């Protein structure tokens, strides 16, 4: 018996190691998703803490005065950030204005969160872009929109003609074009 063991000990060891390795790999694959979510969260926290610290402090300081704006400001800024990063500033305010216009329109939910989380309403909500790193301009744009500036003058739809696959949206009348977005009634 011991003879056999000695003879094949190397193979047994190899077998054992590969078994451990395979378990480890499986666990690794299993954890990839969870850890990636955690990483995103951590990154978000960091982003909020460091780069936007100044902007954040300012906004907390100034926005503390109205709970309406406080509650919705960040949510609005996140959608603007997710939908219109890299767009001209006015295009960012316009996205915020469309959301606010919807809350005042009978055909849409009456709250900013209701409008934002309506299924299929905003691509950045469906694909997770809403959690991207918050740029300070998005916060500023959100504030302008909440303060009543509306570059679209009452539009309730917009789309990027290069990206949209939704045929229904093309039937709406285009009122103006800001950056890459068409704004429609």
């Amino acid at each position: 018996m011991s003879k056999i063991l000695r003879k094949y000990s190397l193979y047994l060891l190899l077998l054992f190691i590969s078994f451990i390795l395979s378990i480890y790999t499986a666990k690794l694959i299993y954890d990839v998703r969870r850890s990636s979510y955690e990483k995103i969260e951590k990154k978000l926290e960091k982003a909020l803490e460091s780069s936007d610290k100044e902007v954040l402090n300012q906004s907390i300081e100034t926005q503390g005065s109205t709970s309406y704006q406080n509650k919705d400001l960040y949510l609005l800024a996140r959608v603007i950030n997710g939908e219109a990063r890299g767009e001209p500033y006015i295009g960012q305010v316009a996205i915020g204005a469309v959301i606010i216009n919807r809350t005042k329109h009978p055909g849409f939910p009456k709250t900013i969160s209701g409008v934002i989380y309506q299924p299929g309403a905003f691509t950045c909500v469906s694909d997770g872009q809403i959690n991207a790193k918050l740029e300070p301009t998005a916060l500023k744009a959100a504030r302008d929109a909440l303060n009543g500036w509306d570059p679209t003058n009452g539009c309730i739809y917009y789309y990027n003609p290069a990206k949209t696959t939704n045929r229904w949206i093309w039937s709406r009348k285009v009122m103006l074009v800001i950056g890459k977005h068409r704004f429609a009634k």
Partner: protein
Amino acid sequence: MSILGGYKELRERLKSVRLWSIMAVTLGILVIVALWGVNQYRGKANYHNYLTNMWHRAFFDMVGYVQNIQSLLSKAEVSGDDRQRAVLYTEVWRNAFAAQENLSQLPIENNVALEKTAKYLTQVGDLSFSLSKQLMSGKKETLLQKKQLKKLRAYADKLSNSLNELAIEISQGRLRWGEVRVVGTSRLKRVSQNVTSSRMLAVEAGFKDYPTLIYDGPFSDHISRQIPKGLPEKLVTKEQAKKIAFEFLNLKRADVVNYLGLSGDRIKVYTFEIIPDRKIRYRTITIAISKKGGKVIWMIDNRATSSPKIGVAKAKENAKKFLIAKGFPNMIDTFYLKQDNTALINYIFLQNGIKIYPDMVKIRVALDTGQIVGFDATPYYMSHTSRNIPKPAISERQARNLISKNFDVQSVSLAIIPLDSGKEAFTYEFLGKYDDKYFADYINAITGKEENILEIIKDPNGILSM
């Protein structure tokens, strides 16, 4: 022979531990991957069930609310008691808003396309609420309002029926809410998802001939069709508008001028994007000039502002000068807010000492240079007109008796305020304190009715109303 020999050889090799070990490892990996897969699948199934349950809850709740609307409206048609009807209308309002909320959560691929159904639910609720208020103030429904309600009830019947059919099919498992665009969904699932979506869109099609509804509420169709009262009749062209924009901004020339389009449903405006100097990074001015009257409706100057060098008092002084220069005399400041190194100040029109809140202009002053970086006169041009303000029918003392005794009044003035319905009310404005909080209480100067209460929030960064 050779095949048999090969077989023998293979058997020999199979016996060899090396091959066994490789097979064992492969098998081990397979088992682990399979376990992992099963785990993943179960997790996904759990999420899917969870979501489906939420969607079902939203859908069945909505069906229930729509049924309630239908039965409450028909009860209101039957009832002869004003108070009873007022209660029924409030119930309709509650059910309609709950129904709309649930509708907007259904996993239709493009939920936004259910706009007409949502609009119906909003308006049936909004109209009922305004009727309930009307009844409470002692006015019965007019014949026209009763006709409107009957029409709305017919829609509730139709909607309720088609939703019920859907509900039966869903509860029998014939229709399912599909998964939300998961890559690699089987074709079958995709089809069933489309069926539910298209069935909901068919319900939406039932509102094709939906009438225009005008009543006393914020979601009435007349709100989006209001005509600006404060704009001159003369129409201007795009070129003239561009000139007006340059005059307003005191610019001789600019590096870039982009025309963005003609838009707006109440005030049609030409919108321009102006970059005065390309060397100053990120500075763009966006400005909108009305087609009717050629007035500057709003302006945003996206200049980066550095840390504040002036206070709010100086900012107000600058804003006031700016307003006078641009043709807005008799404006007084009310609320203000400091943010992003700027001060946002609200100005309202003053007519013979009476505050006209609807005629509002917002000015934003950069606190580093004192420059005006934002302007919005939309409310002003919507409502400003030469008003014939009557003498108050009740005295200040009478009005004071109508407000709560707990309210510590600090100042009183006359004011015209905007109402939700788009109308205006002539009121006494009582500013005061209650429980260390500031409030503004508005008592109608003609009827004595309390029209509105605002909470005033004061803090180091501003004064705001809520």
